[in-house]
């Protein structure tokens, strides 16, 4: 993105230790609105830890996070959601026996008053879930009253994404290997969803092992290597070989 534009969210000097193991050692990260930032790296490079800190699941040992230039801390994931940051995990975190609408609102159910008690407003949740799936993701499910387990992999992905983008104030969406378990057709569809969300002005952070996918959707690539950032490059300016070199450490100076 252009130099004068301010990042939505920045991580500065993030260090995370698990007992004696240093998972992250002084990592910086910036994500901009309307941009897809890919995070790549080998297994154990610290990608997952990094995004878990970004989404409030873990707290950094040292370092801090800035939202719109303001330092803030998150005690847990729900605070991240309250601040407009949400994640779609690799396992999608769906309850398979609930319907898509029930999953979409899991943890943030809509309620209505009934004899002075607040009870779940199932009808409104069904309606809004259908609406979010259609208007934000262009997905229409044949039947909204089936358990989520009966949906295809891509549809389940859409439900998980819809859960995150349902919040009107969502600004940063983190996705952990969104295409790992999908076939070619479903992968293409999911990448399409990611582009659509970017065009809607979200800052999208995607972890991926597939460099093909990374080069198709990302604007910038953040390479993690052994707990540190090995470089951040503009996707348009590099080749797959150069990114591979950063991942494996073959040409550490390329950044």
């Amino acid at each position, binding site marked *: 993105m252009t130099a004068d534009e301010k990042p939505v969210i920045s991580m500065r000097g993030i260090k995370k230790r698990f007992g004696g193991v240093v998972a992250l050692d002084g990592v910086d990260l910036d994500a901009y609105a309307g941009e897809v930032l890919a995070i790549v790296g080998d297994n154990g490079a610290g990608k997952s830890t990094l995004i878990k800190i970004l989404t409030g*699941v873990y707290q950094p040992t040292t370092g801090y996070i800035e939202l719109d230039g303001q330092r803030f801390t998150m005690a*847990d*994931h*729900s605070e991240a*959601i309250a601040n407009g940051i949400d994640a779609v*995990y690799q*396992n*999608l*975190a*769906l*309850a*398979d*026996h*609930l319907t898509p609408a*029930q999953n979409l609102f*899991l*943890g*943030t*159910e809509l309620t209505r008053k*009934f004899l002075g008690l607040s*009870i*779940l407003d*199932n009808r409104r949740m069904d309606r809004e879930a259908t609406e979010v799936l259609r208007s934000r993701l262009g997905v229409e499910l044949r039947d909204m009253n089936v358990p989520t387990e009966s949906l295809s992999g891509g549809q389940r992905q859409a439900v998980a994404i819809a*859960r995150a983008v349902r919040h009107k104030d969502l600004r940063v969406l983190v996705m952990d290997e969104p295409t790992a378990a999908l076939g070619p057709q479903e992968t293409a569809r999911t990448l399409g969803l990611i582009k659509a969300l970017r065009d809607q002005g979200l800052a999208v952070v995607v972890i991926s092992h597939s460099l093909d996918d990374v080069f198709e959707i990302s604007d910038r690539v953040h390479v993690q290597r052994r707990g540190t950032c090995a470089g951040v490059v503009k996707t348009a300016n590099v080749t797959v070989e150069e990114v591979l070199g950063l991942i494996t450490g073959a040409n550490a100076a390329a950044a």
Partner: protein
Amino acid sequence: MTTAPTSQVSQRHRGLIARIEPFMGVLGPLVMIVMIAAFMGVFEPARYFRLSNMNQILLDAALYMPMAMAMTFVITQRGIDLSIGSVAALSAIIVAFLMKQYGFPAWVCVFIALGLGGVMGLINGLVITRLKVPDLIGTLAMDLVYRGFALVLAKGLVLARFPDLITEIGRGQMFGILPTPVVIGLITMVGGYFLLRNTYFGRYTIAIGSNPEASEMTGVSVDRHKVYAYTLMGAMAALAGVMLLGKLNAIQATSAPYFNLHVIAAVVVGGTSLFGGRPSILGSLAGVLLLSMMINALVTLRIEFFWQSVASGVVIILSVATYAWLQKKDRDGGGSVGAALANPDNKKILILALIFAVILALMFAMGAVLAAPPGASG
């Protein structure tokens, strides 16, 4: 053109199974209820279908309805509660003492019992979620604890004769024909249905049973809702304790020994999955009715009381096995007995069974040959 109709048929066929599946929990017990009714209609129609006997069946079923409702929540969360018999006995004994020895008013005692049961359930929940004791062991151990307290309090005493309110709860009649406990039981069932469909607790119960990690990730407080479920279970067990107290108009420390398995059986027969995430309150109601009808049928046929235990066990195994089979996606193959015997694992199990059969046969023969008239030694 020729393939189109067949694919359409198979589509419709699959649609039918898919449409039936959610109702299997109710359909299964209903089929069995009809079968029992048909069987009894042939063999003992006069005594089984008497109004007083129908009343008896409902009265018996009512005792288990509140517990089956609560157990549906516990099992849907992938939990289990083996302490409910002792919770029922202990809460009933405590309020029995309060009424008999301290003259507490009966209506206060009903609420005290519910509160005590709730606290015992809460303790169960804390043992499981905070002390991280697995539910099976945790509630089994708490079962010993609560039963022990009941024995300490009541010793060998049988407490009997309670105020009218208590006997009304246990065996009274409402509106002329409907037994009060049935009304209470049905109210708890309706309440359970409402809880499941329309509250955070119900929604999170399914979510937790379906995928505990996902629930945790999406901000569902898993442990808190587990504690809620066990608390509800404890309170409903205590309600059953009061109903039992009123039904018998007497209570002792060893009362309600088989509540655990009877209630778990009813819930599982009703189609609530032991693997979590699939509740069926209506199924639990059907399961309770089925078990009561079955036990009553055994009594009506003058089959010895102790066979009830055998019958309950067989029904549990049969229903769980049936549901497991229905869940299996691939039902082809593995059909014939011959194919099963070709499997080397099955061959080895067969050999093991044969070895035991031979040893047992030999030992019985030896014992019979060497048998001497039983003397005074034993």
